[in-house]
């Protein structure tokens, strides 16, 4: 289903899904979804509304259990049964609604729930240093202070903080759910740069977006969901923008995608 048409991928994928099924009651949302996410690469996850992107992400995050199929993390089969297990493996999800507390500052948000302490007392010194290091490593230059309240940040800055928060935990896989959805041009630029740097610093990145310009700018691979099936999971160099759009809307484009018979079966 997901044959590479471009350069072959070597090395172990950080995350590999094999034939994942998921149903909610009688509605089957995911049908035998397979996908590979490699370290140092941005994998764009695209698909129309209702294609199953959110369900797939929540399965990876451990929020939904899967009904069938295999999940391999760094080559080892794992079963992720909760958000904490996902975090323990090194999977961090940056949700669309960011989940930052407005009344706390940048450092406090980045360490929220995982504060460093000396005994009872919060270790503000080490937390501030680590937060600053992480932000510098990601070349974040848009914050005036790491001690400013999140309520005073712009949308792009908030997204930056949310992503930096995910990186702080030596995460291996970072999932970004439409990080550029509500941003202006300049802020989108900042966030896309940051996404690229995430991959360049060795993280495996899943980047969900509806914006083909963003996808082609930043992604190495593109995984296309069509009505709960993986239409294609291929290097982006092997496809054109119009082909991806076709994959999203029809599940098939030329020789790539779901076999014609299957498409017919899906659409019935």
């Amino acid at each position, binding site marked *: 289903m997901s044959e590479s048409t471009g350069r072959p991928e070597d090395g172990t994928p950080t995350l590999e899904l094999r034939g994942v099924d998921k149903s909610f009651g009688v509605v089957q949302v995911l049908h035998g979804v397979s996908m590979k996410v490699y370290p140092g690469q941005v994998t764009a996850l695209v698909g129309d509304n209702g294609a199953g992107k959110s369900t797939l992400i929540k399965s990876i995050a451990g929020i939904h259990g899967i009904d069938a199929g295999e999940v391999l993390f760094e080559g080892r089969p794992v079963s992720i049964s909760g958000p904490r297990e996902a975090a323990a493996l090194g999977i961090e999800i940056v949700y669309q609604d960011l989940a930052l507390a407005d009344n706390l500052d940048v450092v406090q948000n980045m360490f929220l729930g995982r504060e460093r302490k000396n005994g009872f007392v919060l270790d503000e010194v080490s937390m501030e240093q680590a937060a600053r290091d992480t932000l*510098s490593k990601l070349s974040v230059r848009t914050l005036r*202070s790491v001690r400013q309240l999140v309520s005073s940040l712009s949308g792009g800055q908030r997204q930056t903080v949310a992503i930096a928060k995910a990186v702080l935990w030596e995460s291996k896989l970072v999932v970004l759910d439409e990080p550029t959805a509500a941003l202006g041009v300049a802020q989108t630029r900042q966030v896309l740069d940051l996404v690229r740097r995430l991959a360049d610093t060795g993280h495996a990145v899943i980047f969900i977006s509806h914006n083909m310009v963003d996808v082609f700018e930043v992604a190495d691979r593109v995984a296309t969901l069509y009505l709960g099936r993986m239409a294609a999971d291929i290097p982006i160099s092997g496809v054109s923008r119009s082909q991806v759009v076709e994959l999203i809307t029809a599940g098939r484009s030329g020789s790539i995608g779901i076999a014609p018979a299957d498409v017919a079966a899906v659409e019935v």
Partner: protein
Amino acid sequence: MSSDTVAPATSAQEPGGAPSGFEDDRSADSLGASVRAYVDRVRGGDLGALPAVLGILVLGLLFFALRPETFLTPRNMANLADQAAPIIILAMGLVFVLLLGEIDLSAGVVSGVCAAVMAKLLADAGSPWYVAVAAAIVTGVLIGLFTGSLVGLVGIPSFVVTLALFLGWQGFTLRLIGEGGTVPVRDPVISALSDKNLPVVLGWVLAVLVIALYAVLQLRRWSTQRSKGLAHQPLTVVLIRVGVIALVVVLVTAVMSVDRAPAPGVVLAGIPYAIPLVVLLLLALTFLLGRTGFGRHVYAVGGNAEAARRAGIDVTRIRVAVFVIGSTLAAVSGIVAAARLGSVAPGSGGGNALLYAVGAAVIGGTSLFGGRGRVRDAVLGGLVVAIIANGLGLLGTEAYLNFIITGGVLLLAASVDALARRRAAATGH
């Protein structure tokens, strides 16, 4: 992708590494910049302690002008401290509850229940004072667990739960004490909270210790932040803060060290015990909120409960905990109030005790919408409320006017809070 291109995060420095960004963290050394930042914050709707401090000054001047011979006397100041202490302590507990955007309407009557438990044990069972006090505090903890469970576990809005308990606990106190009766509190140790004072010398020693401790902590923090290259305030601001605290402590100690005996021949001087109790609670609770993981989580849940939940914080546990803290401090407040009045009546903690305490917290700068507030708000706001009550008493205002004025002040504080919040939303602060 070969494994060696998977760079460990530590070796991923940007070429050049020219650190731009974080300008404010490095340029915050100038006093002018901090003053501008403060003005910006106030304009942006974050008023902090400003309304309460202004309130204390304006009301103080007003009542001094109206009653120059009685208001600013050492005797009335000691009386004011006595009056303010139960309000402040009750308000400290409410700060925790308000930080989550919840409310505890039963806090006042809970202080009455706990005081009644203590008084009954002292008067009827003849228990020693420490047993009675411990029983009152345990009662507060249990009541807080009950309230918190109804709010956090069952999920009933705190407004409804505590409104029901406001009625329920009054009945409980009435049953304990009996219709029309009062239980006297004559234990010397408990009464000492209100009618005994620290020896003058000890008062000065403690005052100097408090100032020294504050100065050392502030300066040490400043120098650590500076040497490690963290965000820090200019030294001038730190010194001004230390200076203001020192001035207030010295002033209070000096006024309380003057002989304020009503008749010649006796000496009545020294800091009333209620003041060190409030200071102790202020320090301990400020530490809890500002320096511990628990405090951080309280702010997080108050700011964005969903974010806190996703960050792995047990939101229910935090919710129950703030009600336990609120009721426990209500118990302490009840004990102090009972010591002051010398008795516990069925109406203890009813009436305007709660209104005063909520008013104190809100006037001090704690938001009714959750997420913003500090323990010191209770102290500053409590002083404002107590000055109003005290001053109106000296003026001999009629009771009806008293109610109207205090209610008006609470409404004013809540309006300031709501407007500040709107302004903050508009200016992104």
